[in-house]
């Protein structure tokens, strides 16, 4: 049997993985909730966040600067993408939106290969988070603790944005009944663009913090978007609460299985998703009709 400190280590590790997933998955879920668009290119936005962060960090050596600049750049890319490509498709079969964002993901991934090359790049851990902390007897990298805290802060911020601001109200109302909100004279189209930018920015924050934890490579976008989809489906499409729970569950499941059954660690979240879908077809917190 593993001791308490081992378990604490596994749990903390799971939370750090979960927070990364949360940053990507919640944007994905919100975009789906509001616009009914499954954004395959979301992982590519996350990847762009990582690469932009790497460039800024390499040039300036200030990690916080990377964390501030990259998300704004990526949010801009997201806005342009939404305006030019998704807008013409809102009235059409959702199938075309999936196909379109899939195509955009292909393009963005190739752009990364062209600009930064096909090999993985290393992203140094910022000096102030390079140490190892002692948590309940478990040695735990300080940087991962920082990821957990930052993820929690961003998630709380988005939660407050959704619950307490006027735009959050529009987003939530738009998720529930878009036509009704439009009929009340609110510019839902603009809310779409803003929401898309917020989601892209969150994914970029995820990308920057993921940099020092994992390597930065051109395949990270598609890998992550698949995992984020799994998280969103576990939690229920369009539900912010669902993506929080789904992400943490998936992170913990991955962390525990990579300690006890390493061979199954990449499988476990897919198995979790299949199990959840068969018991609750709409995900844990989702509306079963949402994805139809």
């Amino acid at each position, binding site marked *: 049997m593993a001791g308490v400190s081992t378990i604490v280590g596994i749990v903390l590790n799971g939370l750090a993985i979960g927070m990364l997933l949360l940053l990507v998955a919640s944007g994905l879920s919100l975009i789906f909730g509001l616009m009914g668009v*499954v954004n395959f290119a979301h992982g590519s936005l996350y990847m762009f966040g990582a690469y932009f962060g790497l460039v800024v960090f390499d040039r300036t050596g200030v990690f916080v600067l990377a964390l501030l600049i990259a998300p704004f750049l990526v949010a801009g890319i997201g806005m342009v993408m939404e305006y030019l490509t998704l*807008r*013409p*498709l809102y009235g059409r079969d959702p199938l075309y939106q999936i196909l379109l964002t*899939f195509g955009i993901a292909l*393009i963005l991934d*190739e752009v990364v290969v062209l600009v930064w090359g096909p090999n993985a790049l290393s992203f140094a851990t910022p000096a102030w988070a390079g140490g190892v902390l002692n948590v309940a007897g478990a040695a735990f990298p300080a940087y991962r603790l920082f990821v957990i805290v930052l993820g929690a802060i961003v998630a709380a911020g988005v939660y407050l944005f959704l619950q307490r601001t006027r735009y959050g109200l529009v987003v939530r109302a738009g998720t529930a009944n878009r036509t009704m909100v439009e009929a009340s004279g609110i510019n*839902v189209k603009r809310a779409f663009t803003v929401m898309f930018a917020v989601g892209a920015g969150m994914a970029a924050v995820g990308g920057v913090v993921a940099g020092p934890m994992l390597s930065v490579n051109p395949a990270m976008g598609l890998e992550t978007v698949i995992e984020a989809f799994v998280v969103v489906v576990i939690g229920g499409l369009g539900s912010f609460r669902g993506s929080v729970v789904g992400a943490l569950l998936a992170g913990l499941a991955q962390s525990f299985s990579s300690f006890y059954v390493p061979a199954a660690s990449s499988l476990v979240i*897919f198995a979790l998703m299949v199990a959840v879908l*068969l018991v609750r077809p709409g995900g844990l917190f989702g509306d079963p009709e949402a994805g139809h």
Partner: protein
Amino acid sequence: MAVGLGRRFDDNTRVMRWGLAIGVVALFALLPQVLGNYGTGLVVEFFVLLLFAASYDLLIGYTGIISFGHALPYGVAAYAMGIVVAGRPLPGVPEAGVPLLVATPIALLAVIVVSALTGWLALRLSGVYFAMITLAFSMVGYFVAFESTGVTGGDNGLLISRPEILGYPLNDYVAFYYLVLWIVLGCFLAMRRLTCSPFGRVLVCIRENEERARFLGYDTFRYKLAVFVVAGLFAGVAGVLQGLYLNIITPDMLYWSTGGDALLVTLIGGMGTLWGAAVGAAFLLGARELLTGIVEGWPIVLGVVYVLFVLFVPDGIAGLIVGHSRSVWDVIGDLQQGDVEAED
């Protein structure tokens, strides 16, 4: 989507179409006499991609269900064939391996079982949830193949050599070409027959309005499951051929983006036509052959073409040929209309 295309043609053009079809087949039958090893291989690749994409068209184009896990039957068939032919250490598999003529039915049986099981589970869901669960199934297959190194060879892949069947040396590229040509042609005609049958019409009915199909008394779940298994079976044939062609089976065959290729080809070629898959496959392979080496990062060009197709030519090249397409102005109109609505 161009189902019911036949009505556009009268009896004269019917003769012409038959003539055209026979001419195309005759042309393909002559090709290996002209092309060398490399060119013939390329055409084999085209046939396999065509079959794979056409089987996917049964799902997306005819029944209107989007699976992101079409790589699963493709890879499962290839692995099942490879494992029994090479005699990998799995209970019940003789160490010396079994002949290909026995291995292929075993592989197809494996695909039927896997497709029926995953389809039965996944078809309880629809829309995005269905797409994601099929993607998950294919990734489960990928990781299983990747991790069970003892049986599948893991990341290194499973090497097989093309055996001799009935005194017919498949190692010879010309012999192999003809085998693939006739099998793919047979499968294509079978799928075409299927889509014209009453069963195929019910599928189109489900695509157009599933609720109405249910009200008419069709058990739509059964129809969807049946087409899921049939599409899987044809994808499995493509997988077996691909494994034999490359002489190696790798976990990549099960990765979800392999299924994404089928999607790409079907969309560019034109959904709901079957022959659109041929056009799309030719387009994809042609673009790869032309652009590799000339343009660095040619997949970007492909991605851009693909995005333009979704925006401007949603019915694909087949749609262009038979005259369905949207103009640039339609799309700009959509954009402006969106803005006007937003300003209201």
